[in-house]
């Protein structure tokens, strides 16, 4: 009887939530609540991480603040900017449950993901690589058969390795710090993630020279901001903010701050990438 009651309760919950009607558009929600919530990473330098002064900073966070300014301009009222942690495994639920309005981290724009969320313009381009201890025999994706490869749960890299390279032993961790520590301790032979994030980790480590980033990009990872689907007004605001930043130079100043030669993680902008970014800016 009691067990039946439990299943009944679960069934009621399920049916109750089964009623779906149109969601509140994001701009209206921001207007009503006065808060713009952004989900970002807290362990992925230099996109979103906790620095030595224990502040939460990053390239994606700075770009999100530009979006925030544009939202305030559009709504004509001041809006609070709030940051929430999101990881590859949690970011889509956080969006769909309205816990955040925008994911500004290291999310790769993919066709499959566009079934669940909408993406802004591409704001960064990279590809998946491997991080290994200096001198490791692994030099690229062809060397990983039979080796232990660490990855983050929910990332595109995990999916790629699982689908295309089943001869490698995949060890999946809930977040980047755990995976990196495991690699540092030799529990996995390599840690795979997008190249730029691996560079960020390497530069922030206490001994950057102990680590190497190896391999050609075995995937193409264009980063975009993610938001709820069917919300074109909000998407316009986000995209226009990015376009204005690229057009007006603000974007490149931020890029230099984080990825320039004196930046947190030197990662020069290739001419093709620069051209690609500039060509995303459509005429007024």
């Amino acid at each position, binding site marked *: *009887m*009691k*067990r039946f009651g*439990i299943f009944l309760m*679960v069934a*009621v919950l*399920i*049916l*109750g*939530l*089964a*009623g*779906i*009607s*149109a*969601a*509140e558009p994001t701009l209206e929600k921001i207007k009503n609540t006065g808060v713009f919530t952004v989900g970002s990473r807290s362990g992925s330098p230099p996109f979103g991480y906790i620095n030595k002064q224990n502040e939460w900073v990053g390239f994606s966070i700075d770009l999100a603040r530009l979006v925030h300014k544009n939202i305030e301009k559009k709504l004509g009222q001041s809006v609070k900017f709030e940051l929430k942690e999101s990881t*590859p*495994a949690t970011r*889509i*639920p956080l969006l*769909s*449950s*309205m816990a955040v309005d925008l994911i500004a981290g290291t999310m790769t724009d993919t066709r499959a993901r566009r079934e*669940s969320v909408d993406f802004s313009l591409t704001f960064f381009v990279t590809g998946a690589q491997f991080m290994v201890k200096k001198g490791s025999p692994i030099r690229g994706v062809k060397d990983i058969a039979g080796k*232990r490869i*660490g990855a983050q*749960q*929910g990332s595109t890299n995990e*999916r790629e390795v699982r689908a295309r390279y089943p001869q490698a032993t995949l*060890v*999946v*961790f*809930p977040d980047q710090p*755990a995976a990196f*520590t*495991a690699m540092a*301790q*030799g*529990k996995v032979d390599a840690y795979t993630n997008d190249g730029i994030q691996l560079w960020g980790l390497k530069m922030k480590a206490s001994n950057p020279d102990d680590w190497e980033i190896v391999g050609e990009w075995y995937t193409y990872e264009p980063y975009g901001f993610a938001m*709820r*689907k*069917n919300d074109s007004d909000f998407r316009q605001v986000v995209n226009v903010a990015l376009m204005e930043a690229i057009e007006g130079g603000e974007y490149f100043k931020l890029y230099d701050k984080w990825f320039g030669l004196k930046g947190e993680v030197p990662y020069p902008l290739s001419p093709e990438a620069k051209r690609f970014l500039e060509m995303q800016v459509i005429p007024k």
Partner: protein
Amino acid sequence: MLLSGFFGIPYEFRWNVLWEAPHYTWIIDGLWMTLRISAISWIFAVLLGIIFGALRTVPFRPLRALATAYVEFFRNVPLLVWLFFWYFGAPEVLPEPIRQWFIHHGMEFWSAVAGISVYHGARMSEVIRAGIQSIPKTQLEAGLSSGLSVSQTYRLIVIPIALRLIVPPVTNESLNLLKNSSLAMTIGVGELTFATRQIETYTAKAFEAFTAGTLIYLALCLSIAYIMNRVERKFAIPGLIARAERAEH
């Protein structure tokens, strides 16, 4: 339904993600892993529990102190912290060849087993100690004075009573162990909670994925509790006041 008008969420239910390949294989693998971790850890935990629980009742002071130290040290720190310690901290002090062997033979699994066994061993020992100490002395005395030898008294009277006394709290602790196996996902073990998370990250259907995991845990815990309840009632000694709290339905 009545409630449906209230919620406006952009969420499409797609229950078939649960039986699409390879999702359901992940659930099965995850469930199997949960059972494996729980079973192996349970055996170690009960062994540790018996050893240290008994040690806490012996008249020899240093052994008692040792056992008390074990219990108080391990059970006062959260299991999650222990798992991180056993996976990231402890292996670093192992000699290199042993460490390498573990790395290639499922260190994640064995760190999880170590953490869970030692922690729950400490909790089990408390339960077993309480059980041993609550056996009425009079039973032992009565047995001896009826002419039974010490070992006979223990075998025929004390131990059967002890077993019946400790079954409910041990069952409770064992279920806690099963539920705590879910923490192993934080150090890379692919058990059931990990598997539901995995489905959710691949399909974005969190509700369906979590429901599957929840129902499986419920089924496991409720059936074990029900079976142990029947066992307990079948073997109960009439007139023996045993339990602290009972859920009767």
